[in-house]
């Protein structure tokens, strides 16, 4: 299941940059020797300044394992140390180091089947997007449902792609906007609650594997809701980005 061998730091070169939202970008990386990854895994990413100072953060791989490249989506964190560089300064040709792929507990393969329930807070959508892209690449019909919490449509990652994937790949996607829903919006608004999770389903009797990712307070809140709704805690996989979200 997991690649053998010690985890090593590899040089990553930015091949391409895609602006996802005003505050988030996807970096497409060339990593010689990359061993491949499972959907949901992440990399540790390390920047080195000219005087040797280093800073390291973890970023989820947003590309599918089938994609053949390593993509990470980075969202700007106010007063962050690493994200402002990656979102505002870095350009194709720039280099840093990555270590990975990391994480087996928070990963999924179509071989495991469904149903799966994916709940994302902000940039927590990145690893779940890897799972959905993987599912689409393998033309899987596994029951998969996604609930995303975003501040506003401007902050919504991959919205166009998800809109297109929904009918094509037999996926259910629901959004809730916590600050500013789109004009005329008839969908969910505000913080994720029990009603939204029930509406997105499936219920605990279907024993779905649940993947929840985002800032720590979001993850704790959603995980508690899922447990309260009767989901088996051992089927709930959580990845907490910490207080600021990564």
């Amino acid at each position, binding site marked *: 299941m997991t690649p053998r061998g010690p985890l090593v730091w590899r040089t990553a070169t930015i091949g391409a940059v895609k602006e996802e939202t005003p505050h988030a970008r996807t970096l497409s990386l060339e990593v010689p020797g990359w061993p491949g990854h499972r959907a949901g895994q992440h990399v540790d990413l390390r920047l080195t300044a000219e005087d040797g100072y280093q800073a390291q953060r973890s970023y989820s791989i947003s590309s599918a394992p089938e994609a053949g490249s390593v993509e990470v989506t980075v969202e700007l964190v106010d007063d962050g140390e690493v994200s402002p560089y990656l979102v505002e300064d870095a350009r194709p040709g720039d280099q840093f180091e990555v*270590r990975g792929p990391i994480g087996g*507990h928070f990963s999924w393969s179509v071989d495991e089947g469904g149903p799966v329930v994916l709940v994302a807070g902000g940039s927590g959508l990145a690893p779940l997007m890897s799972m959905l892209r993987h599912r689409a690449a393998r033309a899987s019909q596994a029951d998969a449902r996604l609930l995303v919490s975003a501040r506003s449509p401007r902050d919504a990652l991959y919205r166009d792609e998800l809109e297109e994937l929904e009918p094509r790949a037999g996926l259910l996607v629901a959004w809730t906007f916590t600050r500013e829903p789109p004009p005329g919006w008839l969908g969910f608004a505000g913080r994720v609650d029990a009603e939204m999770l029930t509406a997105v389903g499936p219920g605990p009797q279907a024993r779905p594997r649940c993947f929840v990712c985002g800032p*720590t307070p979001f993850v704790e809140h959603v995980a508690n809701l899922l447990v309260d709704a009767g989901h088996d805690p051992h089927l709930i996989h959580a990845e907490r980005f*910490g207080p600021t979200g990564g």
Partner: protein
Amino acid sequence: MTDMHTDGNGVAGLLAEVLATEATVVRRTCQSCGDVQALGAHRAYHGAGVVLRCPSCGDVAVRIGVHAHRLTVEWRGTLLMEVERAEDAGA
């Protein structure tokens, strides 16, 4: 006010330096409450080093001293690990 913790997934790279196997799926039986949880599900606190705590009872599970050239690791509880062997590992 929410605590500033992450989880075992967030320190998986560090744990991978220590174990020969992917660490987040390792199942740990807590010495205090007896509950069984994957290391990836443990709460990770960041002080001078890293502390993993049982998600059920909050007691200390792993303590990691993080230094430039060394990690000092103290494991508590019982770990059950499954480690893939190389093709030529033999009997």
